[in-house]
């Protein structure tokens, strides 16, 4: 099993529902976020192109955060989901510094926090909060090892990219372009 997510940049309107749905679902404190939205503009008026991306932890196969964690608090869970165990986390910040995507943040309670792909929901057969709420249905989630999963199907059909593949992290957040 290998969980992954694909975001359709052609449909995403940048509404940021994913960001706030994640915040309420996971009780992320006000003033913090596990997700964010990026807009990239290229060209000169009126020849313009826009890409909008909903971003979060890439749940890398070769995750530097897991590697550098001195206590095993950062670990791989089912399907390659990268998690932090707050009861093991000492808050040293190494994982935060190690993430090329800056996807982790120090929770005000002291431990490090990040996207969990809503593993508590997945276990109950639900999609992650961001995917389930997205009004444009631009977030696809599923198991890469299952050729019929949402994410496998859409990645077969469409051109896609990942962010900073050259960092060698083997990210599992895909962007349909």
């Amino acid at each position, binding site marked *: 099993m290998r969980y992954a997510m694909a975001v359709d940049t052609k449909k995403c309107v*940048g509404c*940021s529902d994913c*960001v706030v749905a994640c915040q309420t679902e996971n009780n992320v404190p006000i*003033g*913090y*976020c596990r*997700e*964010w*939205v*990026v*807009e*990239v*503009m*290229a*060209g*000169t008026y009126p020849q313009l192109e826009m890409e*909008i991306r909903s971003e979060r932890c890439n749940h890398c196969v070769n995750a*530097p955060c897991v*590697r*550098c*964690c*001195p*206590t*095993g*608090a950062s670990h791989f869970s089912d399907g390659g989901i990268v998690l932090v165990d*707050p*009861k*093991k*986390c*000492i*808050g*040293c*910040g*190494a994982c*935060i*510094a*190690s*993430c*090329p*995507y*800056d996807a*982790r*943040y*120090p929770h005000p*309670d*002291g*431990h*490090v926090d990040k996207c969990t792909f809503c593993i508590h929901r997945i276990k109950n057969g639900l999609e992650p909060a961001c995917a389930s709420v997205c009004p444009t249905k631009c977030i696809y989630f599923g198991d890469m090892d299952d050729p019929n999963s949402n994410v496998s199907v859409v990645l077969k059909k469409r051109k896609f990219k990942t*962010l*900073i593949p*050259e*960092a*060698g992290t083997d990210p599992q957040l895909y962007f349909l372009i």
Partner: protein
Amino acid sequence: MKEEIFVSGRMNHLVDPHLNIWHWEIPLYLFLGGLAAGILFFAALYFINGKEDQYPTAVKRTPILAPILLIIGLLALFFDLRHKLYFWQLYTHIKLQSPMSWGAWTLMVITPVSFIWSALYIREFFPNWDWKYNWIKEVEKFLQQYKKVIAWIMLIYAVILGIYTGILLSAFNARPLWNTSILGPLFLASGLSAGAAVTLIMSKSPEERKRFAQIDLIIIGIELFLIIHMFMGFLASTQVQIDAANLFLGGPYTMAFWIFVVILGMLLPAALEIMELRKFHIPAIVPAILVLFGSLMLRFIFVNAGQMSRWLY
């Protein structure tokens, strides 16, 4: 015009708008660790070489500082932790791929060793020292026999500690400025240089001072060589590493790095030491303090600048 903006999110304290997770604690910890490593390295080296009496300050006296420096360093590391009550988790796990774990365990070994070494030479400072309890005296006697073994352990772990202070940073490929294998040797060299400087300050023997001035000069030479190679490597690498180098080559850290680290911390003390060796009268403490200052600044500047260096956005 190309534009890349955050529509929402990315307001996390200490991560945005740029990484600011490590403040004074980590660079201080790295400096103190490197300094202790330098001190213990020379103590072990000259003990093993049988030059205990030729370089008494380095072997017998300066090591007394090491446990103190290491404890302060560990305290600084502890201050840096945001989930302090879970500190003990460091010592219930061995993570071979984690420099942080390596550091914790290295310190776990070298700190007690430095205590033992200092204890064995406690009479250098307090000639009438008495351990009071017989069992301690027994232990001391026992350890005295194995001084050479202890010195070897100390030598190896001093090198590991010295390199570790650099590797802690260089292991982060997310921060292009840190992500160079030069950083380990550079920080080791800087630590050794600082260790030598402490001996220069504390030593009363002209011969020892001369030897350590020479050592320091060589190490500074090596450091400059490493720095030049580091920039050559960056500039010949990818855009993110070119950007990282540019933090020091015209960017916001240019003045701080070249003035505090290179000129005041290396070139000036080197010049003073050369003059000293050529029999000009220079108080030894001046170049030594400059070296220590430069070594401290190197850590602060690298830890800070590295957090500004990134791949995206």
